[in-house]
């Protein structure tokens, strides 16, 4: 039989709910609801004053309608009226309506706040709790403004009832989360911490959530909580299962409180006090021991509660990362769970082991479970468990097991769920590159990847294999041979054709000696795929063909024939048509020498972090699954767009330059051809791979002096026979002002003198630069000054460009310089203690947060000079922090308008080897990398 409701019933409400439930269709339901809404509206508008009960009933009906998913735009006033009723049930419904339906910027908020204020002052604990629940449920800024001062008082007052304290603690937590600036604990801190000692377990349970959140933000002020938490935990862990009465849950003493205590301890490094630490280690050991004891109950609730504490304890052990013994025990325990019959435990064990794998103490222990994890990947029926297994394999991979893991992941990929294929592909690609001992294995792996899961191989992956093949001459021949073989397959993925086209175009000559892969056979093989491919791939193939003409003159007539055919030279796609026409012309008019220069082998790519890794990081980020595809598309677009911009910029500079590049006319591939190494292949596709390196300094920009200004703000930026440019600059927070001094070194007037500052590419959205105009004439021997205001909106990599144009004796002078505005200019130095430094250092432990470089000293290794440079960088130089006095550590916060990025730096000089090791950690990977890059050029 259905249960009988307790408490106060509302007959009309029950009837209405039954009516709705009896509606046979959506339309009938809407009709019934509209009828009810009309009825309620007329009651609220009616002349007759409604009694409290009716008001409550109608408000409750509105709430029900809202919860069904319909919009409600009236009734708020009546709900607010209920708040001041002295009947508890009416007040309660009023508060419920407000909690669910009133958004923060409602104008009613003042009235609501008034009612809450009255209830808080009523000294009736039930009313006070209702009011506190409402604040916690709404949690708006207006409420924080009104009550953030009052609630701490209620929380610590001696005469507050326990239940009110509990609500007050969590209410404050919610307000702190929405408006941390308004919740000032100051004088209350120590009394709040001491709530950990409260006799009432419920008060401790509620207060500890607040304390944990506050400790995360202000660890120093709350650090006394560590010893209190340890002793509380120790008392719970050692208590018998009946000691805690109603706080024992299925024979487990206070599981929620235990988890929260262990979680709080994870905000801090291991306790320094030996006694406290000993006690804590004892607790952790007891928890691990209990896991081995026979269960006190067969109920799943018992084992869940017990294991919840165990997993939280393991998290703490991993967080400390300093007790090898405990780490190994944790790992063994998780190993047992890997084969547990409960899917939940297997899932959590895989997840938890992932973090253990990154600790040096337990990495080896984790590796012993490789077979179990591989079989989980193959046999688990739940995709979310398989996903965890794949994550763990990725985390436990190192040089010793890379081949096995990569092979297993590849074979799993053949049947993997579509939802995780792209991520798997990225992971395989990264592992293959990271642990490649011989690059032929790497090439094989990536080509396998394209064969098995071609659709999921993103551009980053095939760009990367090409970059690596181009940079390693020992693998080029093998790569050419392998792609040639792979292309023999009757149906191969378009990505394979792209890689094949590019690699044979560059290195086909390395296998041309074999009659089975003679130049003509290579060409015919590529061309047999041509008609099945999309336009960008065809464009790439056309570029490969023109490269063939250079590599193998004997293919020239065949290829010219192809280029000349109507399907190419009259292709409806402009890009293809243009390529066909230009390549045909190029091959017929250019001499072999010119061809050889223009179509030279691609130069090595600058070494840099794998773009695949960046992609994986992004994938793992908060991006929603459903938007992933769109994001990918957009990024792709930007990449191409960016490349175009880069080329155009280079072209623009080239055409502006007073002496145009001699190769420009000869090539005639574009109206304004790019210069430099990107020129030979002029195809946007080939350039894509290249320019993916980011906008490198376009040729024509002088940046010799740029790096000299990283650690100083004043000096001479540029000087030639005519002009000298000096700089003085100052920075505060995210703002900077730069004075540029243009000195005319000649005795003749400069006319049409003009300067402009531009932010190329993404920099536009990262820096806001305003330059004052200068006079168009500069007299001989005179100096003019220009003021530039800079605002840093977000962290940035590139430098703004300063372009100066003037006429001197009739000749146009055009100079482009990199303006030395670097991210470190917006540093705010931060002093901190040694303990703080290392704690923060440890917190920034994600691999991408760190950037490290080992490099040779360029100057004498004088510690005073080093100090001056580090101070010039803008950080605080921290004394007595690093145990080795030879080392330097610094800390600072980069101020941008969008965010603040905390950075820690460590420089370790090795005088014997004349080398430095520079390590940077910051909360943002791009910042760490950029700073490392800039700074490694300074010493």
């Amino acid at each position, binding site marked *: *039989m*259905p*249960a*009988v*409701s*307790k*408490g*106060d*019933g509302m007959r009309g409400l*029950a009837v209405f*709910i*039954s009516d709705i439930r009896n509606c046979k269709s959506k339309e009938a339901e809407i009709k019934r609801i509209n009828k009810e809404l009309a009825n309620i509206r007329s009651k609220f508008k009616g002349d007759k004053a409604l009694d409290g009960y009716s008001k409550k009933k109608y408000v*409750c009906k509105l*709430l029900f309608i809202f*919860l069904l998913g319909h*919009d409600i735009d009236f009734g708020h006033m009546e709900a607010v009226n209920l708040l001041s009723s002295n*009947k*508890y*049930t009416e007040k*309660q419904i009023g508060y419920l309506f407000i909690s*669910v339906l009133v958004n923060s910027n409602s104008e009613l908020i003042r009235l609501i706040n008034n009612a809450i204020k009255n209830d808080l002052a009523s000294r009736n604990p*039930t009313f006070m*709790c209702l009011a506190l*629940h409402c604040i*916690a*449920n709404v949690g708006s800024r207006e409420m924080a403004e009104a009550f953030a001062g009052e609630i701490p008082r209620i929380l610590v007052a001696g005469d507050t009832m326990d*239940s009110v304290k*509990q*609500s007050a603690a*969590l*209410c404050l937590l*919610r307000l702190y*989360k929405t408006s941390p600036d308004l919740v000032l604990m100051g004088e209350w801190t120590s009394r709040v911490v001491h709530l950990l000692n409260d006799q009432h*377990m*419920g008060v401790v*349970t*509620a207060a500890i*959530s607040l304390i944990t959140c506050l400790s995360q933000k202000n660890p120093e002020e709350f650090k006394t909580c560590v010893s209190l938490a340890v002793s509380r935990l120790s008392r719970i862990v050692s208590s018998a299962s009946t000691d805690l009465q*109603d*706080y024992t*849950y299925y024979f487990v003493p206070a599981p*929620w409180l235990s988890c*929260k205590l262990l979680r709080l301890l994870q905000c801090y490094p291991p306790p320094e006090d030996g006694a406290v630490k000993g006690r804590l280690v004892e607790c952790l050991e007891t928890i691990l021991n209990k896991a081995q004891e026979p269960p006190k109950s067969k109920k799943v*609730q018992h084992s*869940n509660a017990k294991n*919840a504490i165990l*997993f*939280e304890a393991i*998290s703490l052990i991993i967080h400390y990362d300093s007790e090898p013994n405990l780490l190994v025990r944790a790992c063994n325990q998780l190993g047992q769970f890997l084969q547990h019959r409960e*899917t*939940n435990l*297997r*899932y959590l064990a895989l997840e938890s082991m992932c973090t253990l794998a990154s600790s040096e103490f337990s990495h080896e222990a984790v590796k012993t479970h490789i077979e179990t994890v591989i079989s989980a990947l193959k046999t688990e*029926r*739940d995709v*979310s468990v398989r*996903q965890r297994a794949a994550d763990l394999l990725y985390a436990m991979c190192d040089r010793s097991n890379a081949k096995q893991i990569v092979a297993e992941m590849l074979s799993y990929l053949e049947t993997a769920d579509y939802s995780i294929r792209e991520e798997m592909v990225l992971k395989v690609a990264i592992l293959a590159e990271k642990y490649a001992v011989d690059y032929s294995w790497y090439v094989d792996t990536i080509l396998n990847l394209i064969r098995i899961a071609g659709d999921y191989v993103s551009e980053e992956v095939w760009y990367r294999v090409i970059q690596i093949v181009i940079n390693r001459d020992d693998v080029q021949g093998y790569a050419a041979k392998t792609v040639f073989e792979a292309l023999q397959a009757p149906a191969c993925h378009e990505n394979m054709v792209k890689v094949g086209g590019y690699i044979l175009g560059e290195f086909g000559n390395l296998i041309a000696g074999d009659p089975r892969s003679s130049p003509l056979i290579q060409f015919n093989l590529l061309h047999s795929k041509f008609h099945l491919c999309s336009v960008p791939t065809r464009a790439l193939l056309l570029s490969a063909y023109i490269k063939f003409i250079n590599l193998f003159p004997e293919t020239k007539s065949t290829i010219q024939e192809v280029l000349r055919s109507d399907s190419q030279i009259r292709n409806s796609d402009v890009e293809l048509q243009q390529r066909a026409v230009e390549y045909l012309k190029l091959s017929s008019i250019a001499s072999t020498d010119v061809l050889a220069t223009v179509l030279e082998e691609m130069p090595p790519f600058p070494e840099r972090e794998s773009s695949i890794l960046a992609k994986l990081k992004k994938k793992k*980020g*908060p991006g929603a*699954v459903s938007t992933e595809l769109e994001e990918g598309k957009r990024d792709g677009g930007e990449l191409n767009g960016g490349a175009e911009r880069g080329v155009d910029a280079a072209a623009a500079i080239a055409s502006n330059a007073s002496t145009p590049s001699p190769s420009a006319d000869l090539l005639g591939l574009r109206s304004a051809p790019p210069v430099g190494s990107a020129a030979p292949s002029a195809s946007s596709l080939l350039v894509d791979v290249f320019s993916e390196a980011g906008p490198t300094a376009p040729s024509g920009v002088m940046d010799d002096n740029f790096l000299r200004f990283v650690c100083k703000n004043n000096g001479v930026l540029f000087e030639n026979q005519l002009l000298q440019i000096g700089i003085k600059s100052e920075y505060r927070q995210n703002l900077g002002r730069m004075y540029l001094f243009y000195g005319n070194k000649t005795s003749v007037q400069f006319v049409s003198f003009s300067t402009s500052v531009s932010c190329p590419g993404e920099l536009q959205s990262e820096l806001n630069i305003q330059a004052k105009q200068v006079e168009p004439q500069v007299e001989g021997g005179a100096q003019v000054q220009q003021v530039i205001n800079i605002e840093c909106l977000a962290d940035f990599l590139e430098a703004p460009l300063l372009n100066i144009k003037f006429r001197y004796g009739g000749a146009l002078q055009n100079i482009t310089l990199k303006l030395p505005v670097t991210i470190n200019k917006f540093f705010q130095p931060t002093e901190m203690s040694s303990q703080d430094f290392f704690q923060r250092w440890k917190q920034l432990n994600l691999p991408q947060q760190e950037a490290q470089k080992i490099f040779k000293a360029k100057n004498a290794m004088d510690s005073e000079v080093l100090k001056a440079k580090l101070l010039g960088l803008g950080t605080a130089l921290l004394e007595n922090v690093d145990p080795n006095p030879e080392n330097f550590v610094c800390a600072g916060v980069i101020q941008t308008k969008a965010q603040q990025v905390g950075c820690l730096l460590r420089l370790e000089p090795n005088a014997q080897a004349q080398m430095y090791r520079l390590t940077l950690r910051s909360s943002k990977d791009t910042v760490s990398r950029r700073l490392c890059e800039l700074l490694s050029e300074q010493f």
Partner: protein
Amino acid sequence: MQFMLLFSRQGKLRLQKWYVPLSDKEKKKITRELVQTVLARKPKMCCFLEWRDLKIVYKRYASLYFCCAIEDQDNELITLEIIHRYVELLDKYFGSVCELDIIFNFEKAYFILDEFLLGGEAQETSKKNVLKAIEQADLLQEASVCLHAGFPPSVLSESFLCSLDIAGVFRRVKLD
């Protein structure tokens, strides 16, 4: 915890509690996606899944799914027991609670939840203390009325805790 949703096997939302500020539109979108995701999962799959940047912990009791979204560093197992404790509280209060109780007394379900969890954190984990608070409030109310006695028995009136007997649940599923 960021939010808790209770929904039926037909995908009808029975209770929603949000501990982070979101617009109604976002709430509806999240609910739609999540209900779909969870309902698509087979029985015996694990109770946890990654969803956007959150961890979802869910469990089915008779006809109703209880589903919580927690943050990365939160503990999955203890959240599972939060769900169970809430079910126990409902069960104790209503006496063999079933979905119909929650439909007809949704406001009570909210009140009990507020006593147990506040701001997404456990406020009071003792069953006795929570029920004491609710009963005290009930004492302040007028006479009790029998609400839905007489409704025909259906899946909705299947008691949650009896259905902890897994086999029973599956039998039920097949019958429907």
